[in-house]
């Protein structure tokens, strides 16, 4: 859901598939407890930031229902903040929606890696898909075997989904009672959240920093020329340039 999780620093890029290296007993005790505990703790820690989303969404002009619908259905932090920001800016809803969906593209890559790891089939895939976030992927990919990965994924999904949605509701209802969103600085929550989300990536490498600077420059240059929302989509060209300019990174994230 958010890039801000420990994922970038802590999660191994590859699941270590060597359950045979461990004695069965330790696998049962330590192996079952850690994914559950880690998943629940991560879900609680990250889910609380739903407070910020609920407040930002209502500050942007969404109703509390709309804020909650986004958290329940979209369940993708960056996309949700982006749509709220686009609505606050009063720009084209179409461009805002397109930008928000593009921000969710990373989840397609997570689920691609999780498909092999979690081994879910049939109807179960439809429920599993909704649970794919930065956090659940990080926990699942850090587990030593398929069973632990599934357990960790489910624990993170359950904990984060409940916390994120409860926090959204509280933030939305609370912000609705505050009065003027600007006087409480709610208009700064969106950009501050994006900055926090992008921060670990900026430290990942020079390409990331160049792409970020390029994306910001493109969007600022296009802002006076295009309807609000569209400049952000144009910024994807910076990502295209970054992907074409260099060999895929050796930072271990491209598995």
């Amino acid at each position, binding site marked *: 859901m958010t*890039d801000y999780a420990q994922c970038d620093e802590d999660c191994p890029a590859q699941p270590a598939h060597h359950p045979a290296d461990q004695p069965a007993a330790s696998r049962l005790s330590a192996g079952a407890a850690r994914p559950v505990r880690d998943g629940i703790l991560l879900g609680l820690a990250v889910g609380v930031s739903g407070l910020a989303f609920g407040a930002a969404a209502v500050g942007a002009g969404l109703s509390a229902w709309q804020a909650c619908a986004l958290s329940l259905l979209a369940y993708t932090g960056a996309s949700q903040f982006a749509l709220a920001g686009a609505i606050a800016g009063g720009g084209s809803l179409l461009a805002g929606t397109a930008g928000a969906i593009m921000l969710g593209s990373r989840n397609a890559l997570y689920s691609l890696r999780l498909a092999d790891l979690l081994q879910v089939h049939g109807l179960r895939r439809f429920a599993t898909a909704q649970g794919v976030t930065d956090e659940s992927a990080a926990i699942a990919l850090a587990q030593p075997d398929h069973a632990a990965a599934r357990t960790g994924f489910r624990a993170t999904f359950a904990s984060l989904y409940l916390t994120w949605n409860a926090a959204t509701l509280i933030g939305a209802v609370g912000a609705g009672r505050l009065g003027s969103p600007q006087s409480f600085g709610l208009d700064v929550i969106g950009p501050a959240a994006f900055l926090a989300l992008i921060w670990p990536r900026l430290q990942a490498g020079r390409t990331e920093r160049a792409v970020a600077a390029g994306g910001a420059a493109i969007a600022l240059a296009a802002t006076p020329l295009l309807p609000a929302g569209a400049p952000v989509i144009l910024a994807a060209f910076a990502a295209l340039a970054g992907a074409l300019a260099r060999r895929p990174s050796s930072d271990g994230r491209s598995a």
Partner: protein
Amino acid sequence: MSGIWIAVLATAAGCYLLKLAGLTVPERLLGNPRVKRFAELVPVALLAALVAVQATSKGSALVLDPARLAGLAAAVLALLLRAPFLVVIVAAAGTAAALRLLGIA
């Protein structure tokens, strides 16, 4: 149905389908390393663009709002101090709110 509801539901559908796609699509379709790298970099470019645009614009006009910029500066400071997410947010919103309350910005 209002435009905002349509945008909310379309965003939800798009986000869900992207998650489902990875579980359904054969890996080789997205297996190209450059495609993967692009998908990794898209959020970096878009989030940076969002920070820049939301910090400095109102609609299609570029504006200088000292309270917003000070709030973002507070966020940067908090991030440099490795503060957790909510502390970053509260520092940013609190700084902007305080400056506006004092009538400085």
